[in-house]
């Protein structure tokens, strides 16, 4: 008995962690399991195992159209936000200039503003200027809220760079441009890649701002929200589960590549 309590108190934090992870994964597991449900319309009750939904992920009306839009919007917004955000991070991390605190404020504000406020205010502006919301306005909105997160991520990476590496390149007669291209940029690459991944997942998952500024363009989260009221088709679970597998694969691959690189050095 005494050894049991001791084991318990010694492993308390581990037991806690296991419970925490269980909590985190319950809805993911549910989504996976019900992607195999043999139901045609509402996916509420278990009706038997089938591969049909996985064989035919576009089987439900409009689901792949919405997914395609989300992917296009995500890629485009990520590219623009990563570029603009990295440039800002460079300016903040590497240069002294007037108005720095104002710039920091402007980067911080979108992160401290609830999505619904940004969504409502953007739509107000578009309506006041007579612009019809659609694909372009979604991209505009997504880039806007992703920039700050890119800046913060890349800035942290720049701050952790060892300046001696660049000095060494200069000592070896590399000019500024070459040092940047062959030393600074490769060192920053993991940070920039991480920022891009973050931007993509923020964009892909966004509902509130998108719902305000999308007009009649459908996105995947919008599709889920609208069809949740009548019953979500199992194809939505298939797509959710696939995104999970793909994203996990990308992250693990990134870690693997990173470890091999570190090992090589």
């Amino acid at each position, binding site marked *: 008995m005494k050894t049991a309590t001791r084991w318990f108190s010694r492993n308390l*934090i*581990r037991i*806690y*962690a296991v419970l*925490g992870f269980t*909590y*985190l994964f319950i*809805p*993911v597991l*549910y989504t996976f399991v*019900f992607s195999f449900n043999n139901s045609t319309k509402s996916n*509420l*009750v278990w009706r038997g195992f089938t591969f049909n939904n996985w064989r035919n992920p576009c089987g439900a009306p409009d689901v792949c159209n919405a997914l395609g839009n989300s992917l296009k919007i995500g890629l485009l917004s990520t590219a623009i936000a990563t*570029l*603009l*955000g990295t*440039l*800002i991070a*460079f*300016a903040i991390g590497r*240069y*002294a*200039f007037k108005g720095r605190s104002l710039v920091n404020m*402007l980067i911080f*504000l*979108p*992160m*401290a*503003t*609830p*999505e*619904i*406020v*940004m969504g*409502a*205010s*953007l*739509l*107000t*502006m578009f*309506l*006041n200027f007579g612009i019809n919301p659609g694909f372009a306005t979604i991209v*505009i909105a997504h880039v806007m809220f992703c920039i700050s997160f890119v*800046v913060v991520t890349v800035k942290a990476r720049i701050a952790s760079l060892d300046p001696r590496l660049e000095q060494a390149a200069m000592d070896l007669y590399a000019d500024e441009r070459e040092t940047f291209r062959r030393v600074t940029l490769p060192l920053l690459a993991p940070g920039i890649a991480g920022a891009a991944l973050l931007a993509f*997942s923020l964009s892909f998952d966004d*509902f*509130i701002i998108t719902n305000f500024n999308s007009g009649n363009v459908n996105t995947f*989260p919008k599709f*889920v*929200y609208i069809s*949740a009221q009548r019953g*979500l088709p199992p194809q*939505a*679970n298939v797509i*959710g589960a696939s995104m999970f597998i*793909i*994203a*996990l694969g990308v*992250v693990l691959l990134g*870690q693997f590549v990173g470890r091999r690189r570190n090992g090589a050095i």
Partner: protein
Amino acid sequence: MALVKARLNRKRLWPYILLAPGLIWLMAFFVTPIYQLLTTSTQTPGVNIGDYIQTYRFANFIDAIVGARAQFLRSFEYAFIATALGLLISYPLAYAIAFKSGRWKNTLLVLVVAPFFTSFLLRTVAWQQILGEQGLVIKVLRGVHLLGATGHLTATPFAVVAGLTYNFLPFMTLPLYASLERIDPRTMEASGDLYANAFTTFRKVTLPLSMPGVVAGTLLTFIPAAGDYINAELLGNPSTKMIGNVIDARYLQIVDYPGAAALSFILMVTILVMVMLYIRKAGTEELL
């Protein structure tokens, strides 16, 4: 001489050139919209439905807040509870990953973020179905009579707060982990050497050193939770509506732009003031 001067000027201009595209984007699509929101909030209805003219009616703000006071207070209450629960769940988790996981550290970190690769809405719908009338949980609870035959889990404030807590957990766990991981374990050993027990070490050494993570995590949870309306919509009932539901309905269904704009503006300013006070109080202004 002129060449040197030109070079120097270019060097001085460089940061602004780098900043320009991103800042112009933020000025055009963040600052300008907020200004538009402010001007819309004092308009009054025109002749046609959906037409509004500027009359500088500042009473709109009072009308808006009086009409939605309950939802406004509820949003902050729910967000506060969800943030506190999130901190209670995430802190030990982040602590375990930072100090007790050994070579599993990276894997566990990936696992914290992994659930969030399935869509936010899908996970909320999943909770709705797990806890819902046809779900397993309710059958078990009714079976063991923990819940009456007419008792339910969804469409309750409990479900809304649980959903809010769940949805923002990684935003809490990751900053906590980042600041815990940076703590030199020798500081904790030193505290032990000075005869502090585990609890005192935690209170006097670990917790204060992890404060930047606590502040960042609570902010990243509280802000989106206060403005959220998905959880209230999918897991709640009409009496659990939050301020987000009101703004959404006023804007997209009732087409009361000034009212929605006034509410949005009040929400934004309230949160900003709270954030500023909180950061000042917690003394972590380097977050800015």
